[in-house]
């Protein structure tokens, strides 16, 4: 019974299936729904329900306790004139743009180095070496990077002094002109595991013959890179970019631990403002509205990104 629903073209049932009426098709697939019952129920209860309650709360003034009354779209209007939110969005755009490029280009670059190795053993070990840092908790990395940026004894300033660039030392996190750059470079040149392995996977699946025939045609490293490797891993690169964009937009612990959004508002981002509205000012309604806007923005960016990359592929 189920086999007719399978994707297999050899079964050849899909065409007939799609012509049947909906209730019949649902009935035929009943065991599939049963199989999905547990995960769907869990996601509905533990993920969607809380998410919808946030959507609901964004229409209310709510202090996390008893004060709870309807205000309609007031929070969304307030966001339009909120200076902090405006600054936060500007900061975020720059930050995400930079991180997306960094967290795609670096893994791509490292992966390219690795597939160019002729020694299979070495390339295996390099993969392990670059995946290894994932066992370190994120919060620990932030603590270390605070040490690196420390204005008085930080590694960065000490290094600059060592090579005679005393004039370039900075309170990297305490100066509004450098703080966003400092934050953008946190964990440099770490390769985000998921993105790195996905891109590496893409590069590895390029057939050997393609590279060989390119070599016979006299294509050097750079030509191969731009005419074969990048176009053939387009879908992996798009995915890495989307994932980075989604993760970085929701990041608030980085900002909270490193700068608390300061000095002034110079490293404020929406996710941190959301956190502060909720947990410092007890404005859960406003916080929820920020969350909803972030969600919609992420969804839109993801769809645009997919469309653009699909369009580019079909050409």
């Amino acid at each position: 019974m189920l086999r007719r629903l399978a994707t297999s073209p050899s079964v050849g049932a899909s065409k007939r299936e799609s012509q049947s009426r909906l209730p019949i098709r649902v009935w035929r697939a009943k065991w599939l729904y049963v199989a999905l019952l547990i995960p769907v129920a869990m996601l509905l209860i533990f993920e969607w329900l809380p998410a919808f309650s946030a959507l609901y709360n964004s229409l209310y003034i709510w202090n996390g306790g008893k004060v709870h009354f309807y205000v309609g779209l007031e929070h969304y209007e307030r966001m339009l004139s909120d200076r902090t939110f405006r600054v936060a969005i500007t900061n975020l755009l720059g930050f995400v743009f930079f991180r997306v490029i960094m967290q795609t280009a670096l893994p791509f670059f490292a992966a390219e180095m690795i597939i160019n190795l002729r020694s299979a053993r070495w390339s295996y070990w390099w993969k392990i070496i670059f995946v290894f840092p994932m066992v370190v908790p994120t919060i620990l990395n932030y603590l270390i990077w605070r040490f690196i940026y420390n204005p008085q004894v930080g590694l960065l300033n000490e290094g600059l002094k060592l090579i005679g660039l005393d004039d370039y030392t900075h309170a990297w996190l305490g100066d509004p002109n450098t703080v966003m750059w400092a934050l953008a470079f946190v964990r440099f040149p770490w390769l985000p595991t998921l993105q790195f392995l996905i891109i590496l996977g893409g590069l590895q699946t390029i057939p050997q013959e393609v590279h060989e025939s390119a070599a016979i045609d006299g294509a050097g490293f750079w030509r191969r890179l731009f005419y074969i490797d990048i176009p053939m891993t387009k879908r992996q690169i798009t995915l890495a970019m989307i994932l980075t964009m989604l993760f970085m937009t929701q990041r608030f612990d980085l900002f909270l631990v490193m700068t608390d959004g300061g000095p002034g508002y110079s490293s404020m981002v929406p996710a941190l403002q959301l956190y502060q509205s909720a947990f410092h000012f007890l404005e859960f309604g406003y916080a929820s509205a920020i969350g909803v806007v972030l969600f919609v923005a992420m969804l839109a960016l993801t769809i645009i990104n997919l469309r653009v990359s699909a369009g580019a592929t079909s050409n």
Partner: protein
Amino acid sequence: MYRRVLLVALFLLVFGAIAGQAQDEITIFATVGGYYPDEPTENNPDPPKMMNEIVAEYEAANPGVNVELVDVPSNISGDQWRSTVFNGQNEPHIIVNNYIRVWQEQGNDWYVPLNDYIEAPNPYIPEGTPGAERWADSIPDVVWNTTYHTGSGNQYVVTVNAVAVGFFYNIDMLEANGIDTEFDISYSLWEDWETMIAEMGAIAEAGYEPLALSMSTATPYTYNWFDGTSLTSMYIDHIESWWEPGASWHALNQREFACAIQNGLISAHDDAFADWLGLLADFEPMWVDGYATMTWDEAYRLFITGETPFLLGNAASNTLQVNRDADFNWSVSYFPPVTETTSPHAANNESAYLVGGFTSGFTVTDRARREGIEEQVVDFLMYMTAQPQWGRVVSDSPRSIPTQYGLDVPEALSAALAFLDLPIRALKDPDPRLSRRYGEDHRRLMQEYFTDQIDLETLIAEEDRLMTREARVVIAENEWSCDFQME
């Protein structure tokens, strides 16, 4: 065979359920802040432990009552923890609380008003000691007056600690640079604000960063402390008109300050206000690089390693740390007064003001009421905070100065004693002065000004907008009238 096993198991289950019901035990969950008994480690061989003994004694004296101490992280996760457990009605019965937070959450009925309890005797306070006949008498009125909630007139917080703040200074380092380390006045190295800036300037000339402090809310931040004291000095001639009628010198409550703004008695456009901003701006070059995002630990490190001669810290809790870590001679000084040499507005000012450090105390939460064990929870709170018990807690781990009458300040904290006689500052930290949002935004605006992102004009305009808005919000939320102040 296994039917019998099943029967036995069933029997045990039923019996266990009945036995569990019959015992009728009470469990009190409590957070105790810095006095939480951690386990000793190599670097911290002697953590506070007295709380464990007190809990054990209480449990022994009250069969059927369990007390569980709950450890809560200080900042980042702490805020999320609070909101979530309160919202989910799973909060501990007793919780260490900053009174500003209690005010902020007032509409929720999350805390039990303690008015009636503090009027009654505390049976655990020995005969003849203040508090035995009326619990409130064990703690000075100035403390109660600081923490009570103006909107409801309720007292929610029992404050047992006073925080004394000050400048720790490195005697060896100052002397090596030819700077006099004798007190000019009874509580301070300097006779006035100008002298302080001049001397710190001399240190800066000698190639050091003078003062380590932190101005980031992600950690306990210390900048706040002279924000309120210096503002008090600048408005010294006017503050009296902001009081509720008949009051004597005190730390203004939220209502008085909000109404002063509402009635136009203080405004960011005042000359005194501009002078105050100037006073802070003149001081700012003395602060270490990166103070805006510095953590307390980083500021502390600078002082301990002899990189900076001054550290703005908590003269009570940090004394222990400095005592253990410093390999130089050091002492603690208070802020100098702001006088006419600094600003004409401070001409009639005679003194520096005490940073009224009654910030955290114990509250009893609504959970005690819901579970019907309010009496028992308050009883434990009475036991814990009565002088015989609290005295042991404080001498075991001298981290704060006890507020109760009849308790000596621990030997280790004697340096801070001289400051406690100063009059309390009329204007508190930015957060309790008006609202938490004001405190946060004010700090960010000041940082923007200090780092030249905005000029003085913009700062004043933004401060004005912020103050009027927050005053309006606070007054509306509490439905206060501001008629008591004349314009």
